[in-house]
């Protein structure tokens, strides 16, 4: 990089007509620039020597060095280099070498980190091993890869930024925005072009074409949408109103074993499912089977007096707020908490919401028992839930 042209009075930065530097020169060049548009050079003829005061001729450019030609190009683009200075006017000084060394060190560290990354990637074991059954070094694999990759990328980044900040010339450049609207003449001509084209189509006169095109266009716009959405539409039917529990459905645990009244201690709680195909996986079927403590009594809802069985009650586990499983049970207070939005249900109040955003009690499953083949009692549901479980929806009564 030459030092000429960098605020060095010995070599004026003005590359030719147009000029770089003071605001006075700039406004002159702009004024001349607007003048040129009035007399455009005729097409097909060689451009005159000074086609624009902003653009030097080839002969003039031939006399310039690289930097002067660059500055001339900038001026042609409405970019004015107001200040430009080599950070190290005399090449090869100690501090320049130090800066260069620092940048080079960044790139070198990046290179070394990448090599180390490759070594780790290939050589360090990465397969998960149970503790006690082999080396646990795999735990280091991901942290090492991330760190080394991070160092490598960061090294390149820091190096590039420092290079720009320490070694490249500092410059202050001002550019004209030219952001505003087009000239009024341009606007008028463009409007006329649109208008003339529209008139050429004759749409204004040919109302038959207009209306039929409108119909066709409208149909093309809407029909594919119907086809796409139509394929996706599924009728909810009564799926939201029902679960897999029916009259006499056996009640089972997650592993498929049937639930029996002798399984739970007083105050215990367990999640149960309908013992039918897909019952354990269905999102609307998880149910809480709770054994009350001897002194506890529930005041049931209307018509639900016989839904319990002895000291057992069963409620839907799906929160009536947003559908998460209300799975945290505080035995002391008999409260159920939904961990998603902290709705709390009091089991002794018939699973009524006592705090948080939930508005409805958890639906209750009518419980019964039947004798199994082994002569033991096993739980069954006496019917489906008598109201929809889970979050509310429009059609819910």
């Amino acid at each position, binding site marked *: 990089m030459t030092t000429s042209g960098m605020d060095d009075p010995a070599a004026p930065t003005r590359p030719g007509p147009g000029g770089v530097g003071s605001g006075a020169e700039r406004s002159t060049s702009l004024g001349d620039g607007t003048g040129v548009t009035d007399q455009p050079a005729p097409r097909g003829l060689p451009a005159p020597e000074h086609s624009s005061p902003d653009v030097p001729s080839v002969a003039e450019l031939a006399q310039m060095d690289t930097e002067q030609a660059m500055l001339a190009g900038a001026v042609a683009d409405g970019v004015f280099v107001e200040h430009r200075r080599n950070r190290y006017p005399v090449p090869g000084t100690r501090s320049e070498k130090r800066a260069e060394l620092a940048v080079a060190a960044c790139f070198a560290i990046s290179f070394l980190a990448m090599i180390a990354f490759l070594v780790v990637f290939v050589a360090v074991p990465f397969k998960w091993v149970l503790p006690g059954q082999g080396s646990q070094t795999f735990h280091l694999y991901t942290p090492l890869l991330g760190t080394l990759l991070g160092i490598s990328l960061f090294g390149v980044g820091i190096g590039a930024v420092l290079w*720009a900040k320490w070694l490249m010339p500092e410059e202050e450049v*001002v550019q004209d925005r030219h952001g505003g609207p087009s000239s009024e003449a341009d606007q008028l001509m463009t409007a006329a072009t649109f208008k003339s084209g529209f008139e050429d189509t004759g749409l204004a006169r040919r109302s038959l074409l207009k209306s039929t095109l409108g119909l066709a266009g409208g149909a093309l716009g809407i029909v594919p949408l119907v086809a796409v959405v139509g394929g996706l539409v599924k009728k909810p039917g009564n799926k939201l109103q029902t679960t897999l529990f029916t009259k006499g459905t056996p009640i089972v645990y997650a592993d498929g074993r049937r639930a029996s009244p002798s399984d739970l201690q007083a105050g215990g709680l367990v999640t149960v499912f309908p013992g039918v195909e897909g019952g354990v996986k269905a999102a609307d079927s998880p149910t809480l089977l709770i054994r009350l403590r001897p002194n506890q009594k529930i005041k049931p809802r209307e018509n639900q007096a016989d839904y319990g069985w002895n000291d057992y009650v069963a409620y839907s586990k799906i929160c009536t*707020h947003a*559908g998460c499983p209300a799975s945290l049970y505080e035995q002391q207070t008999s409260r159920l908490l939904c*961990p998603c939005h902290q709705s709390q249900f009091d089991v002794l109040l018939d699973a009524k919401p006592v705090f948080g955003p*939930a508005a409805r009690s958890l639906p209750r499953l009518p419980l019964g028992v039947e004798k199994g083949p082994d002569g033991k009692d096993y739980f069954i549901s006496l019917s489906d839930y008598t109201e929809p479980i889970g979050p509310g929806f*429009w059609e819910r009564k």
Partner: protein
Amino acid sequence: MTTTIHSDLPRNFQKPRTPLGKVAKGSEERFGLAAGIRKQLNKVFPDHWSFMMGEIALYSFIILLLTGTYLTFFYDASMAEVAYNGTYAPLQGVEMSRAYETTLNISFDVRGGLVIRQIHHWAALMFVAAMTIHMFRVFFTGAFRKPREANWLIGLSLLTLGVVEGFAGYSLPDDLLSGTGLRIADAIMLSIPVIGSWVSFLVFGDEFPGTDIIGRLYIAHVLLIPAVLAALIGAHLALVVKQKHTQFPGPGNTEDTVRGERVYPVYAAKAGGFFFLVFGVLAGLGGLAQINPIWLFGPYNPAQVSSGSQPDWYMAMLDGSTRLFPQWETRLFGYTVPSVFWPTVVLPTILLTLAAAYPFIEARLTKDRDAHNLLQRPRDVPVRTSLGMMAISFVVVLFIGGGNDLVAKVFNISMNAMMWGLRIALLLVPPMVYMITYRLCIGLQRHDREVLEHGIETGIIKRLPSGEFIEVHQPLGPVDAHGHGELEYAGTSVPKRMNQVGGATRAIAGFFRPVREKPDVLEQLEAIHQAELESSVSHGGSVEVQAHRRQLPE
């Protein structure tokens, strides 16, 4: 151009000899790019730290595309049930979906897969965070004003889509945590009046969870939404290039000019370097900071959930509003509008509409229909600044609400007290923040005027003959007969300490020893300044200086 001219040209103007030169010449003859490319190389970018936020968002998006494409090689968006048989022993034999199994495989059986997965997740968080902060910057400095309203709307769409995209990606592993999130999303759809259950069945293809959702989320996550995001980002950047950057006022920064550094080489080096810095930080996070360890959550199971379930950060606000909203379920004529509808559908719609409409509301209220290229300092527009802070405080309360169980646990506060406290705070804090911000803005404005009028406090105490003590003030410019500064406030930062106006030497900086000017550079600079001084004098024709000048090395 005749050959005679060519023969006169210096070497670099002659026929290209280097391979690069030949390629350039060849392209020029075919595509005619020279003038257009030079214009882009010379484009001027202003420099301000707050302009980096959008860049971080852009770079995060690129990193998301890179890492995300890698992940698709191994991920299978299928809800088919399989029994896990991979490396991670604690889950062996567990029934799970293919989606969860392949995500486990990426984490345990693909060499380096986990670090890429974690970089991808961190980049997603960074993407949304950077866009959010970028929007704050644009809002508080008034960069959204005419002519940039379109870019404000594009930005808002990008932010909204970014959140949807993030949620879709977060749901893909089909683990317990994300499945619970999907179930809440289902409850939100169900809550929409009239069409809710149809929307839910349309999206899930059946009653929740069905067997389609992961596949549909996948194609939305890897194709549909990224394509729209990329198109919007393209439009956003094209508008920035066309309309150019906004900038704080200053010498050379006017409504008609932009001041900074040209794209090539300085800005390109800085921005390119910055991309690697962002990537480096994300790679470090991806390696060192574990995120979304799905193997600890287990596969999705509608009957299970763990306490302390937290979504990604950008969902916390929605989660908070859902937690704090009261149990107001309405029943009308035998139909239900669940309470979930208000905080999750209505509230975000209102907030987004307000944000989208803000540039137009402000233009109407201030009757300001002019185009603006210069930024405003937040203090100079107290109403806007206070409104923005009010909105942020509202969202921050909701954000805390999204983790109210964790806050209650960590600080040993009653969950119920926490919930009620936040409900009240949601109504009280925003107006309070509005008032405080407004007073702060006015105070800062007054202090600017005060310094312009009376000068900078120098810290020098003078005793007058009368015995009175006064502090000496340094005026910033010319003063009138009463000693009051004549400088007008120019919408830019006013220096308030002496060392901001060169009145003191640089404060000693440095970790181990004081940083001093580099002596050799200092000497050179002095020599050059001296030469400059002399040459300017020499135009005046001073013989002495001319004589002195000859002694300087040329």
